[in-house]
């Protein structure tokens, strides 16, 4: 048996019974990485020595009678946008090529306290801006299901690493779909929690009012186990919610009888890939056959979501990325005449095209004379989009949509056309604007044998309902058990 191919909860059972050790699991995963990484290129920075050290420490503790908690000894991969004390954190950018944070973010610290094993930092679109992981300064990451296609983005490294069995679990971030869309492309589970459910402290900001940290896993159960650790208030993040955290595993029940599933009519539109449409319709049928009822829902402001997102997210990004000025840390240009020249050259050379595009957009959006027309108006539309969701959830328990309009597209296909790239997130973006939770989970395959994901959206702070519907669907289908060709190859 290849331990790297198992889930966290399966490995946990074995660890508890003494059937395996964290060292054995970690060795298996590192072996897997060594076999497939040159094809996938999921990692920016690998930390195998640290991983082995942590695994040995965990094993010693277990031998000494320490409790084996659900994620104890489980190797995981960290999106390179989360700060790790002593391990460089690049955000996929040249400007942070040599940046080693002096602290670890709250979410990672919580996982580390459980005894997880750090495999390294995985690739992403530069500063989480992108839907294909092609904008990374550290090279592209390939989809383990088809190496000619993108893994999605921006958490493409996380999704690819999970799908290629290069880690057991991973952690990503989602500002407009960056957990869910790559999860969909790579046939894994990805949850964007409610805004404020997980502390953002240590997450290098792209768009502060939209950014969320969430689990990326091989199945729904592992996502629940991760959420049990990640969720909760943090005194270092005033935007984190001071609310009780439920035990999400209690929601892993195989039962959707009587639940109402809303199908937003605006999402099943022309332009939707026929394979995706077919998979979603089948998923709806499956859930209906299990006792759920469906109801058509209208989210009338959906068509404004992408425009609204690119006004708000870029405005916030333009300010968030001002700190990369070559004064305190990060890339500094070689020669310059004066302070302004140093700023301009360092930033021109340190940031990639997409990041610069968004900084310029955001700067414009906030400029005197344009603020009201763009930023303020976008905020108003954002309120309308939130209201759409509030109204929808009066009529149903969850909403079900495709995660992305197509399965993974070809590498290079959309790089020349930013607007087409932005539309990859057309189904995921509203969720961030509304601040609600949503999960992508596998629900089928395209003709080209590429995974298709469906998205389940829930009410604010009701991740439990999402877990229940997702778990029930998973228990009654086998998409999540399918392995990518790259993962199979290593067996």
């Amino acid at each position, binding site marked *: 048996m290849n331990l790297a191919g198992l889930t966290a909860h399966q490995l946990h059972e074995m660890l508890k019974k003494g059937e395996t050790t964290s060292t054995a699991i970690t060795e298996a995963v590192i072996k897997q990485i060594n076999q497939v990484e040159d094809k996938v290129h999921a990692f920016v920075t690998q930390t195998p020595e640290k991983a082995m050290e942590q695994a040995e420490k965990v094993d010693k503790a277990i031998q000494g009678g320490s409790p084996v908690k659900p994620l104890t000894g489980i190797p995981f991969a960290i999106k390179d946008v989360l700060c790790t004390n002593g391990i460089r954190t690049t955000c996929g950018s040249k400007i942070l090529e040599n940046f080693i944070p002096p602290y670890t973010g709250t979410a990672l610290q919580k996982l580390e306290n459980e005894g997880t094993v750090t495999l390294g930092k995985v690739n992403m679109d530069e500063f989480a801006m992108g839907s294909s992981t092609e904008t990374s300064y550290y090279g592209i990451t390939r989809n383990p299901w088809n190496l000619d296609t993108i893994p999605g983005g921006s958490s493409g490294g996380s999704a690819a690493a999970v799908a290629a069995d290069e880690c057991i679990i991973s952690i990503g971030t989602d500002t407009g779909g960056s957990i869910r869309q790559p999860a969909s492309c790579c046939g894994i589970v990805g949850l964007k929690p409610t805004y404020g459910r997980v502390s*953002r402290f240590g997450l290098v900001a792209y768009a502060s*009012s939209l950014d969320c940290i969430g689990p990326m896993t091989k199945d729904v159960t592992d996502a629940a186990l991760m959420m049990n650790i990640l969720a909760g208030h943090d005194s270092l993040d*005033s*935007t984190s919610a001071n609310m009780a955290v439920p035990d999400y595993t209690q929601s892993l029940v195989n039962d959707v009888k009587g639940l109402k599933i809303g199908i937003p009519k605006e999402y099943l539109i022309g332009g939707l890939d026929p394979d995706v449409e077919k998979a979603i319709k089948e998923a709806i049928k499956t859930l209906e056959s299990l006792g759920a009822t469906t109801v058509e829902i209208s989210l009338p402001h959906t068509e404004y979501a992408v425009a609204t997102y690119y006004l708000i997210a870029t405005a916030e990004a333009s300010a968030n990325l001002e700190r990369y000025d070559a004064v*305190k840390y990060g890339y500094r240009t070689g020669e310059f005449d004066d302070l302004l020249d140093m700023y301009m050259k360092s930033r021109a050379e340190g940031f990639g095209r997409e990041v610069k595009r968004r900084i310029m957009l955001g700067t414009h959006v906030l400029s005197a004379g344009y603020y009201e027309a763009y930023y303020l108006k976008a905020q108003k539309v954002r309120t309308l989009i939130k209201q759409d969701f509030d109204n929808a959830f009066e009529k149903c328990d969850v909403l079900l949509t495709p995660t992305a309009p197509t399965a993974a597209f070809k590498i290079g296909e959309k790089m020349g056309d930013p607007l087409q790239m932005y539309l990859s997130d057309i189904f995921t973006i509203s969720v961030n604007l509304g601040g609600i939770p949503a999960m992508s989970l596998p629900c089928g395959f395209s003709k080209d044998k590429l995974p298709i994901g469906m998205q389940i959206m829930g009410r604010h702070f009701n991740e439990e309902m999402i877990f229940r519907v997702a778990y029930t669907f998973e228990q009654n289908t086998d998409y999540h058990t399918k392995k990518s060709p790259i993962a199979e190859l290593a067996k």
Partner: protein
Amino acid sequence: MEYEAIIGLEVHAQLNTKSKIFCSCSTEFGAEPNSHLCPICAGYPGVLPVLNEEVLRKSILTGLALHCKISDFSRFARKNYFYPDLPKNYQVSQFEQPICYEGYLDVPTEKGIRRIGVTRAHMEEDAGKLIHSGRGESFVDLNRTGVPLLEIVSEPDIRTPDEAKEYMQMLCSLLKYLDVCDGNMEEGSLRCDANVSIRPVGQKEFGTKAEVKNINSFNFVKKALEYEIKRQLEVVQDGGKILQETRLYDSDRNVTESMRSKEQAHDYRYFPEPDLVPIEVSTEYIAEIKSKMPELPWDREARFVKELGLPDYDAHVLTSSRALAEYFEEALAIHNNPKGIANWIMAELMRELSGRETHLSEFPLSPRQLAGLVKLIDNQTISGKMAKNVFADILKTDKDPEAYVKEKGLVQITDSSAIEKMIEEVIAANPKAVEEYKGGKEGAINSLVGQAMKASKGKANPQMVRDLLLKKLTE
């Protein structure tokens, strides 16, 4: 044509909290460069600000004292500009929804009380400091980065440099009274920018204003404004136009110089700070802060006049600082002679303090000692003259005046037979003065009183000496 100046002040007051506004670093002044620093105030990637509640409380307290309305919903905003002393390259400030707005301060001036409107008071973080080596290098010290500021913006209600100075002094005194700012202008705890324009007297519309920055003492407020008003008058009188610009005050040369024009003005691109939740304060919260409000200087001043019968001047001086007023009241609680204690504080004690700002505990004489001293005068144990010596002797000690006087045998002679005896000797020894007095030269009595006091080594009660002398000479 006669012109008048229109002046509005923006005062930046450093709030005297222990830790910075968004992190737990110390705010202490004068530490080794970059020693009060953490990833949060240094603007590292991934960090988040969390508001120090003390900053909010002190801001609301100040707002209430300035008769401001307190916003029940207020926000922080990002003010964007690149500068090396600003690690995030945006300053977290407040823009559209400041915590305090629409207040005023009544400033006593030569022309009576002037009510200066307070447009707003908002919270923000301070920037760091640049240190230039003079060899083409610049260094950044981020110790000050994130120290809390309250920016208090006045209405353009000020008309003269003197008024501006008085407003500034009054504000400073109030901030110290409230214990929200140490008011130390040398250390930059209080900084001032001024918006200045001129217009012909009688004209309603404002003229084009210049913003004068970097005014860092009460005297500079006056001097900088005097210079700037004169400059603007000269421009206008020469047929020129005032440009909207930002000017920097150079106190060494006492001039203001153009820093940037309107065209070069920053577009700060303010927008609501998404990393901080909006601040919602309940009426209960405000009431709780209000309940801890110390008696304000003007209220205390009025009370001293009304209830203690002090002259306006005394009441004003005694309430000029909270420590002084508290000292006075403590002494008064021990010995109830308001005017007597006031006189001693205003003359002897204040000379000792010589303008130094001190806490009550650092006064060179305790309120109990001063009260004891005045009591000894009032019950005629010692004379005022003797008291001055005692005051000097027990300064900076914890000696009780009564015990000290006893120990040194300094008790005043109030025994009339003893005084009479001395008087007789003085009269016998000074026939010329006696003659003059009897001849109608009343001033001659003073020399006789002086002689008698000298004979008693200063211990005789001067009033008794005078009374008995008069009695004797008219017999």
